[in-house]
């Protein structure tokens, strides 16, 4: 599986994603400049975390106008795998590839800490290796991760089982005190209808080595590899 990690001005998880996919999982990784218009040859596109354009104006609002996002939109429409992490999730929403918005954390503070996520469904390309109900331990690092969608959009997300991850307690309860940012329905990650585009606030690329505190993030990246290998070329 060939991965393209998109680098916007201000992106900083690009090298971490490259490390997780390239060094830990031994997959070929290309860094893709935000001015790039061609994603040929790529199987997975990662929009990594960071502060694209300094998060000025609104997180992701400027990045979504870069040439590469047109290419990402076309790539997603063709069924290519797209993973938006943190700022990447925000960009996917701004680009209308995923619904809803990510508001300022309810605490009004940036939060960097390990949280627990409950896997809600294993149909998305990024959870095929997980069991529904499985609890993953993965860090968050954001100031604006408070998921919001209007009631009808939220209902649709739930009905179509597109909520992929929910913040939960260690034993899998999606309780209010397990919610680090005020997200509606404890939502931490959602997919598009087809399941090939995932946006999530937590950082799976930071949870790929026991040395760094845990490797549950591997399940998400490996899921993508397995989902891809099942798709006939």
């Amino acid at each position, binding site marked *: 599986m060939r991965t393209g990690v998109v680098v916007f*001005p201000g992106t900083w998880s690009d090298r971490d994603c490259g*490390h997780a996919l390239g060094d830990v999982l031994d997959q070929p990784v290309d860094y893709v400049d935000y001015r790039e218009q061609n994603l040929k040859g790529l199987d997975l596109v990662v929009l990594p975390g*960071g502060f694209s354009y300094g998060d000025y104006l609104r997180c992701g609002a400027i990045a979504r106008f870069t040439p590469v996002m047109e290419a990402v939109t076309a790539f997603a429409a063709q069924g290519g795998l797209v993973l938006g992490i943190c700022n990447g999730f925000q960009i996917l929403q701004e680009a209308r590839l995923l619904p809803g918005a990510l508001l300022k954390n309810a605490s009004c503070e940036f939060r*960097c800490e390990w949280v627990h996520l409950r896997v809600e469904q294993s149909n998305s390309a990024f959870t095929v290796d997980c069991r529904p109900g499985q609890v993953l331990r993965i860090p968050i690092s954001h100031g604006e991760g408070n998921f919001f969608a209007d009631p009808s959009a939220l209902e649709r997300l739930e009905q179509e089982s597109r909520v992929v991850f929910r913040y939960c307690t260690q034993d899998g309860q999606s309780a209010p005190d397990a919610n680090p940012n005020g997200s509606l329905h404890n939502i931490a990650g959602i997919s598009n209808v087809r399941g090939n585009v995932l946006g999530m606030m937590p950082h799976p690329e930071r949870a790929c080595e026991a040395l760094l505190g845990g490797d549950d993030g591997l399940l998400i990246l490996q899921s993508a590899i397995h989902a891809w290998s099942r798709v006939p070329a």
Partner: protein
Amino acid sequence: MTGDQLSTTTPELGVRRAQLDSVALADEEYREIVRALGREPNDLELGMFGALWSEHCSYKTSKALLRQLPTEGPNVLQGPGENAGAVDIGDGLAAVFKIESHNHPSAIEPYQGAATGVGGILRDVFAMGARPIAILDVLRFGPLDRDRNRHLFQGVVAGIGGYGNCFGCPTVGGEVYFDPAYTDNPIVNAMCVGLVSHEGLRRARADRAGDVVLLVGADTGRDGIQGATFASVEMDERSASRRPAVQVGNPFLEKLLCEACLVLNELEGVTATQDLGAAGLTSAASELAYRGRRGIDLEVDRVSRREHGMSAYEVMLSESQERMLVVVRPAAEAAARDVFEHFELHADRIGTITGSGRIRVREGGAVVGDMPLKALVDGVPSRSPAVEFADKHPSPPMPSIAEPEAILLDLLASPNLKSRRPIYRTYDHQVQDNTVIGPGFDAALLRVPGTNKGLALTTDGNPWYVALDPYDGTRAAVAEAARNIACTGARPLAVTNCLNFGNPDRPSIFAQLQESVRGLADACRAFELPVVSGNVSLYNETSERNILPTPVIGMVGLLDDLSKRCPAGFQEDGDLVFLLGETRDELAGSQYLQLLGARLKGRPPSVSLEMERRLQSALLDSIAAGVVRSAHDVSDGGLLIALAESALFGRRGLKCPNVTGAMSREAFFFGESLGRVIVSIAPRQVPDLQRLMVHHQIPIHAMGVVGGENFQVGSDVRVPLDTLRQAWETAF
């Protein structure tokens, strides 16, 4: 100052008194400038001299003292005098690091003051060609029950997070203490550590005439003009009006600038890169050229500006952030410009390196400033203010306690000891995927990417010990920093330091500085630790109240094999807990006495560097041999606090049924004798631990057994772990 004084001139000096005051130069310094120039300086030149001869830039009050510091060693690749120091960590790699203060700006505008403090130290590191991999912050505030202090605290913490998080460098450590002496005058020191290959290590030395000088990064605005001067005088109620002297940060731009500089570093024909910090273009240009024993010609018209109508004075003294000077061979200019263009950054060709030994500033074709660099950079006369040593008082009798359990809980909940998690969880401490041990423990531990090595990082400086005895207190800070590094299993490598003191024109304050530097030098010699970089911040005086003397030690250590790392929390139920080192009847300067509201008096804990070295060798040997499962330094708050922390870190209870010392219960539980570490080990390892401690002649004291739901020490203390955690996690 009255209007009358403003208009008065001192005929003998030929310059308006107010002008000298505004650049904080003394009369004799002005005469020295006239001698060096052979004429009176014009306004621009006076402003430039004022900035470079400020305490902040010139170290005129401290430089004679700083010569005592050991700066050399087999690992040192770059000592003081560059943007940052550098040490060899093997594998062809260098760790580049420095700590710097941003106290004065933070006192006026806490968010931007702290943010640009982080920005400045990041630039110092990437100017050396290194990728920044970690930030640590040393903070001191007045008590948070005063709203001004709370405003400063919240602003500073938000500013550090705001800058570091956006930039993408993890904030992995630091410390924060509270004391009334820091009311209105917070301490904000930021340390940055970076990594670079030996060949990639770059110096800010323009040693080739004819080279092209590019100013890259942000446009130049009117912010921060005379910031260096402002940082070199005491503050008072008028200081708020100096807000324009505080700069405004743009971490997004800094991120681009960093990536661009790291790409630039790979090019042929790049001579030097120099960060624009205090005194802006004046300092950067002068130091670059002076270090290379060359001269520099600048054309201010070519500097991209943020606002119209800026004078040469404003351009030369602006402290606008996120700017860098880059010196390249003429043949490399086009390639360098391409790099900056790729990152959508300006690169203005603003001058050339000359062989003149002078800095010449042109505006509109005319020379508006022309000064010999030697005088400007290195000509300020050293000052040696009067000293007056404080009497050393014996320690007062100690109050005895009836309820050690209540004291323990109160101490755990006290501002200086409670969990720092509410602070550090607002900082991204994981980005870059190298954080093995994050904030909240003895030292942070980062993986060196591409290797199995770890870098241990810490900052330390207990200001109360220094206040009681500047010499011993500073030696204690070095000893504690080294002990924190050793607790992770890493070997201390080198030191950076930030000396925060009050107004040195007061003899008692200058005596503190003098004694502190002597202690720093002696301790670093004893530990064979070179001091490779540092910073001095004086005049931390607000409305005639001086801060506690606050020397801060930043230390870097190396762990050769990350699999041998040692955590601070208890690991397994049934493990046995031992205290290594000797406990003495010492309480002065302790958190315990502060809690009781006792006056700061007496002798600080005694320092034996020889014993400390033995303890640390013993600890490192035990960790390397796999004997020890956890190690935690006993420091602020004393033994009970250290035990409680190891229990809290490891989420495991502790049973110590029969522990007593040969001294008062107060000193045993809450005294802060130096040179002690708590370790936990598997029961079968006891003979090995005993053997190692006998070998190093370190006293060993059995404490108890890990496990259970309670924290139990002796017959007096029995607290459920949850209660302990509640106290410790009290909000700020």
